[in-house]
């Protein structure tokens, strides 16, 4: 384990994985619950889902959203991909001395708007202000509570031939935020995909029986999310590079900087593994929603032993995909 915390420990890649496994799970126990985006707990009268997430984005306003919208949508999506109906949120703010109240108002308004549209209630909150220089503007933590509908859930019964679906183009959020920072001198028209997916995913889950698992490929991107599923459930999965939807502008920025869209963050996309016979039906259902219009079948489960993710290139060769290895830095030329 490294001696100091670095930015890469928060990127959702290999170092984040080690931090969670070696420090948090080691101390808090219950590794099973930590495998999912929200924990399922039993209370008298039914099952509920609980999740928590902290949002520390720079810049706090970016094309397509703000830290406020993100703080609601991100937690709502963690509940939704776990198969629960998002119901309540709490929020905690850590604000740096000197932060503009006008900006705070916009952020809070974005949160209220997103919560209203999503159908969740923000029921508790907390605010702390720290000295100037102790934080970078504003940090928000949201905790979400979702309710499981009896008899409807992801099955986790994976079979060879199960299809892998992504609900839209990948890497939009990563590129939008990267270019909005302005320090790379690159400008792009790309907007973040930041959006709550609960209505779309609810409909899919209610009307189909073949959903094995759903995840939102946030930090670490699509590749890291699928590697985690493959390892957690000992699945060999293959995705086809040509089938993965990527906007031309996103690919262009990636080519320029030496990044891979597969590892860029998404904040309004879901990955679903579904029964082979249900795949077309589920794809069509996703496409009926604006946030799912670019959904595509990108691969399948090809074995149930090795716990690995393969990528088939357009030329037909295959390569092994691993978790994101530390923060991506732009290349020289």
């Amino acid at each position, binding site marked *: 384990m490294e001696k100091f915390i670095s930015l890469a420990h928060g990127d959702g890649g290999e170092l984040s994985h080690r931090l969670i496994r070696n420090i948090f799970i080691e101390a808090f126990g219950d590794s099973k619950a930590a495998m999912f985006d929200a924990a399922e707990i039993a209370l008298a009268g039914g099952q509920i889902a609980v999740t928590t997430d902290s949002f520390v984005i720079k810049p706090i306003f970016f094309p397509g959203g703000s830290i406020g919208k993100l703080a609601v949508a991100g937690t709502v999506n963690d509940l939704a991909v776990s198969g629960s109906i998002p119901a309540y949120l709490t929020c905690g703010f850590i604000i740096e001395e000197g932060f503009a109240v006008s900006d705070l108002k916009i952020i809070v308004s974005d949160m209220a708007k997103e919560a209203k549209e999503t159908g969740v209630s923000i029921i508790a909150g907390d605010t702390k202000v720290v000295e100037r220089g102790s934080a970078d503007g504003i940090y928000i933590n949201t905790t979400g509570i979702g309710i499981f509908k009896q008899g409807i859930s992801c099955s986790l019964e994976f079979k060879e031939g199960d299809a892998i679906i992504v609900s839209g183009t990948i890497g939009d959020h990563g590129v939008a935020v990267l270019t909005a920072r302005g320090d790379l001198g690159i400008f792009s028209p790309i907007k973040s995909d930041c959006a709550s997916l609960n209505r779309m995913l609810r409909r899919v889950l209610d009307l189909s029986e073949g959903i094995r698992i759903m995840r939102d490929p946030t930090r670490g991107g699509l590749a890291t999310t699928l590697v985690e599923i493959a390892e957690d459930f000992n699945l060999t999965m293959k995705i086809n590079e040509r089938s993965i939807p990527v906007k031309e502008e996103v690919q262009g920025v990636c080519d320029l900087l030496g990044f891979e869209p597969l590892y860029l963050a998404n904040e309004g996309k879901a990955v679903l593994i579904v029964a082979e016979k249900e795949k077309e039906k589920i794809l069509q259902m996703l496409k009926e929603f604006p946030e799912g219009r670019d959904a595509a079948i990108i691969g399948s489960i090809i074995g149930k032993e090795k716990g690995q993710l393969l990528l088939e*290139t357009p030329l037909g060769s295959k*390569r092994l995909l691993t978790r994101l290895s530390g923060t991506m830095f*732009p290349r020289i030329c």
Partner: protein
Amino acid sequence: MLEILKQSNNPEICKPLAEAVKEKAKQFQNKFGRNPVFMEVCGSHTMALARSGVKQILKNDVQLISGPGCPVCVTDQKSIDEMIALAEGENRIICTFGDMMRVPGSEKSLLDSRIAGKDIRVHYSPVEAVKVAEENPDKEVIFLGIGFETTIPILALMVGEAEKLGISNISIWMTTKLVEPVLRYLLDSGGDHMDGFLLPGHVSIVLGEDSYRYLVEEYHMSGVITGFETAELLSGVYKLIELALTEQTALVNNHPSVVSKTGNLVIQQWFNKYLTTCDEAWRGIGIIPDSGMDLKPEYDRYNARKKFYIEVNEPRKSKCRCGEVIRGLISPMECPLFAKACYPMNPIGPCMVSTEGSCAAYYQYMRECF
């Protein structure tokens, strides 16, 4: 333009082209009893060949060797230690290309120094550092100037910009490299096992097609200037095999839409105004005379080597074989550390950490081929 690029990656075009290359390679094998051997000089070529699957598809038919064209990989270990020592000084802001952050020095990396509290910033353009200097007049801003002919002009541009704005608290730590001296070095020191070079599209935009004439005229070695899309790479390899098969040597410009005969004359004028050649140390090779560029003496005020005194110990010897990888003497997988002690999360040598490094390319894109 986008349509052309998309076509260049279209499998309907690339798959038959790959088959044609294999067929041509078979003819070469039948004639000479071995596979053709080509060096891709540029690190971006190495990455593109591995990422697209071309290396995997051709692995039994054509031997593609990675060359010395990754700017991070060829940076001497002592230079890296010096840059990290430079960053350790007080009241400084170090600006650098992202690739440098994780490169291990003898004791630590720039990323380690940043975690420990040093002000080290990543920029895509050196000109951004001028703005940093303007905003921080009480600090010295130093740009770590590594790179080949593609990067050297923007380092000169940075000096020009600082001069224009009258900013004096900025300088460059120059440790740049030139393609021609290292290719001559490779050919002078046993490069005759190669049948030709895939020449870099980026560098050639600056230098122009004619700058490689020495390959054919002095060394009787073929070169094909090529772009980075899959079809361009495949057609570059095809042309090299075709030349080798007919036992001809030639220089082919396979990237004529952007590479002219004489190169970019405006950029070449910047070179002449601000820069002069100097001896440079290359990782695994040592000093090659006149293989780098430094600021002319009249710009000493922007030369970090003249402004700051940095002294480091000789680097410790390690089992890392990056020096041989960049000379094309071994493949990354022949290094005993590869994928065992050395991997992207724990790079021992620069070839594993750079986004253009051969070891990183093999680790990320070719491990299914073992």
